[in-house]
C-alpha cells in the first residue's frame, strides 16, 4: 500500500489529499515532487490533508519539514490538516508540532492562509 495523492483548489489554497504511507521509497519521493511542483507553478498556499495517512517514518517526517522549508523559501506556506493519532504523536515526539500550523477543520484551515 503506497501513497495516493490528489489535489483540489479552495479559495486560492491548494489542498493535497494524501492517502497511504509516507516512508522511504513508498511515498516520500511522491510527496516531495508534489510539493515542489505546486510551489514551482506559483501555487504557494499548500494544505496537506493527512487524514488518510496511517503511517509515517522519519523519512516522511523529514519530507514534511523539507516541504515546509521550501514553501517558506518560495514565499509560500505549507500547513497540515487532519492528523491521525499516530501522526500527531510522531509530531509531538519530534517537537515538530510546534513548527507546523496544524488544523482539524478544513474551512478554518483554508481561511487561516
Amino acid at each position, binding site marked *: 500500500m503506497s501513497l495516493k495523492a490528489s489535489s483540489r483548489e479552495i479559495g486560492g489554497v491548494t489542498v493535497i489529499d494524501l492517502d497511504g504511507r509516507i*516512508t*522511504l*521509497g513508498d511515498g516520500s519521493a511522491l510527496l516531495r515532487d508534489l510539493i515542489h511542483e505546486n510551489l514551482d507553478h506559483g501555487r504557494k498556499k499548500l494544505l496537506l490533508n493527512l487524514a488518510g495517512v496511517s503511517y509515517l*517514518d*522519519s523519512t516522511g517526517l523529514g519530507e514534511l*519539514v523539507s516541504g515546509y522549508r521550501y514553501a517558506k523559501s518560495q514565499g509560500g506556506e505549507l500547513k497540515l490538516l487532519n492528523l491521525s493519532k499516530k501522526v500527531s504523536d510522531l509530531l509531538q*515526539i519530534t517537537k*515538530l508540532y510546534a513548527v507546523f500550523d496544524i488544523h482539524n477543520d478544513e474551512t478554518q484551515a483554508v481561511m487561516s492562509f
Partner: protein
Amino acid sequence: MSSKPQRVEVVLETLLDSIALAEEVGVRLAEAAGFGEDDQYKIGLAVHEGVMNAFQYGNEQKREKKIHVIFELAHDKMVIHVTDQGTGFRLEDVPDPCKDENMLVDSGRGVLLMKAFMDEFSVLAGQGGGAEVIMAKRYRAPAGSPAM
C-alpha cells in the same frame, strides 16, 4: 504450553524491501510476545528505523552487504539487534533534532523515534566493525498480575 519463539534471526540484503520485511517480522513477533497493537506498531516502527539506517548509512545502499536482525523474547522484554556492515557510529555524534537550531533539518529523527518508542536503546560496534543497534521493550504486566 509456551510456543513463543525465543530467538529469531533474519539476514537481509541491503534493499528497500528489506526494511518492510524486517518490520513485518518484528510486528509478528511482538504480537506473539503478547504486546498490544499500539506497542506492536511502535516496535515495528523502531525496527523500520533501525533497518533503514543500516540500509542508508551503514551499508550505504550496497546491495551485497548484509543486514542482520535478531529478535529475542527474553523473560521480561523483547530485544532487537540490528547489525550492518558499515563503519559504525556513536550516539554522541548524532545531533539532537529537537534543539532549536536543528528543528528544520531533514534528518536526525530516526534515532529519536527509536528511543521514544522503545524502553532501551544503545549502539555498539558490531563484530564486523559496523553498527549494532540494540533496543528493547519491556512486556507490560496486566494490572494486578505478576509480570509475564
